[in-house]
């Protein structure tokens, strides 16, 4: 008799837990990340943390937060103020402006393909050890948003819409820095750029011009550009190794970069390799935005290298000033680099879209 009661209870319990029960609370909808064929063919799977899986609700909430100026103390700065969609989520300034028009410390990095940063180190100096951690800092940085997380959470909590959105995305009405940064990170992981003319060339959909072909050859030639060691190749369509290098910008460092984070003098002057995608929209260049044009960048590697104790050995012709490209080679290299820019990236993202 006791067994019969037990079995009946068990059946009742299992039936109550059936998924299609309309009374059961449904979680957020998993987000289907569309991975470009070049990425799925050439790269390992993106970094998608199990404690922050992509969901439709989380990504949409992250997008809304990304453009919300109420994250800043004076209500004038959103993430998108310095990471503009039309600029591949960077901006046109050497260093961005924060609240009260204050200049920041470094050039705003563009935002795309960040889920493929396998070491999960973000910012120019690698300080942020996850995308969630990266989203944490600007809100309270006095030169960026200048706010407090308590204040941000209170502001959003008092909003008529946000609490429900957080509940739908994370199952909680309570808003805090953890769920805010999780949502922002989810949104950022969906920003994928893989529709550049060079991608179309790799997919057999178009040809390169003779100048672009020569530019690619210079890029891949260890005797000339030798760009591939740090910036990848057609087999690494991220066009960055996401590693840290001193590329010979300075002999003395006003900004220690990675060295300030690790405390190791051997890391002084090292910064994360930026992707070469979307260069036509991410000027100015380098961590301090010192170069306004691609011509200036190429000139730097050609004849403008500065020696230092930590310069990367891959800057192999530092004692001659650089790789000494001809004017024609420089122009062709830039023609190739421009083919890595995706004209449509960033469109359709933002409020109202």
């Amino acid at each position, binding site marked *: 008799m006791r067994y019969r009661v037990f079995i009946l209870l068990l059946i009742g319990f299992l039936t109550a837990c059936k998924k299609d029960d309309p009374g059961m609370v449904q979680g957020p909808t998993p987000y289907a990340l569309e991975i470009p064929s070049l990425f799925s063919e050439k*790269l390992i799977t993106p970094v998608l943390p199990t404690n922050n899986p992509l969901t439709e609700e989380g990504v949409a909430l992250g997008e809304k937060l990304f453009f919300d100026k109420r994250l800043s103390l004076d209500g004038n700065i959103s993430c998108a103020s310095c990471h503009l969609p039309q600029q591949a989520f960077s901006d046109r300034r050497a260093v961005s402006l924060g609240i009260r028009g204050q200049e920041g410390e470094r050039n705003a990095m563009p935002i795309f393909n960040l889920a493929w940063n396998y070491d999960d180190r973000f910012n120019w100096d690698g300080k942020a050890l996850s995308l969630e951690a990266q989203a944490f800092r600007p809100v309270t940085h006095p030169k960026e948003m200048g706010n407090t997380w308590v204040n941000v959470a209170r502001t959003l909590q008092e909003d008529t819409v946000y609490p429900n959105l957080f509940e739908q995305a994370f199952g909680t009405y309570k808003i805090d820095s953890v769920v805010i940064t999780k949502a922002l990170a989810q949104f950022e992981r969906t920003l994928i750029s893989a529709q550049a003319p060079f991608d179309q060339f790799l997919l057999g959909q178009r040809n390169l011009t003779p100048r672009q072909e020569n530019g690619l050859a210079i890029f891949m030639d260890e005797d000339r550009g030798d760009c*591939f060691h740090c910036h990848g*190749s057609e087999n*690494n369509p991220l066009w960055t190794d996401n590693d840290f290098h001193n590329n010979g910008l300075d002999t003395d460092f006003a900004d220690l970069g990675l060295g300030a984070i690790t405390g190791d003098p051997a890391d002084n002057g090292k910064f994360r390799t930026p992707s070469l995608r979307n260069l036509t929209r991410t000027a100015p260049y380098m961590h301090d935005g010192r170069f306004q044009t691609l011509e200036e960048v190429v000139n730097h590697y050609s004849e403008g290298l500065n020696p230092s104790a930590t310069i990367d050995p*891959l800057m*192999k012709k530092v004692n001659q000033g650089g790789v000494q490209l001809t004017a024609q080679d420089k122009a062709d290299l830039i023609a190739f680099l421009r083919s890595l820019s995706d004209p449509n990236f960033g469109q359709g993202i933002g409020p109202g879209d």
Partner: protein
Amino acid sequence: MILRNLSLFSLCLLMACTKSEKETTTEFELQFTQSWNGTPISSESLNSFQFQNEAGEKLSIERLRYLLSNIHLQLSNGTEIPLKAFHLVNLQKEESLKTNLTTFVTSKDIEAVSLLFGFDNEANQDGIYPDLNAVSWNVPKMLGGGYHFMQLDGKFENNAGELAPYNFHAIRAVDKSDPENLKFEDSFFEMEQSIESTTSRIRITIDMDISEWFVNPHLWYLESDATSLMPNFEAQKRIAANGKSVFSIQIESY
């Protein structure tokens, strides 16, 4: 009573399975160590001018990555059991310096472990390994494509007393004097070490004596050959020749 008997039977079954599995598997711990003339080095040894090659040149090491492949066991019955297709060692990444593997053979049947430095030509296909693509380990197509075998980078004191970079990169040797008709010469090489063990846990330590890259049989002058070695056919052949005395393998039970 029936339940008790059932439990005892299950327990016996589980014990039998455990024992049987232990008898038919061997666990391997592969360690990848690095040294300079017998002195162990680690990531903490990077970036300082504490090394001197046989030619008398002082040098630092700033980056060391190398690829070992086709790691397999040779059994006494003549068969080969693969352990791992390839392994990329990066001195700056602690997790790459050790790997644990299990194989379903008893140690008494194992005669030797073999592996390659680099990829053989069949494995060295362009762009086919996503995890190697993701760390930019590729070789440009103009040099035949495929993958690096080693990147050893650093600086040395040149004859002018300046610090000069070196990029001691190993790839499949290629003669590109006619770009339309590349000519290759194999530069991967095999290593082998016999195993005499009856225990189920074996540690294989594969040490790279970095100093050996610069001597035996070819005394290496960084002053002459420091950079752009990938397209240098003769340099690649000399690197491969020098590599034959670089590695040593130790086997121990643990």
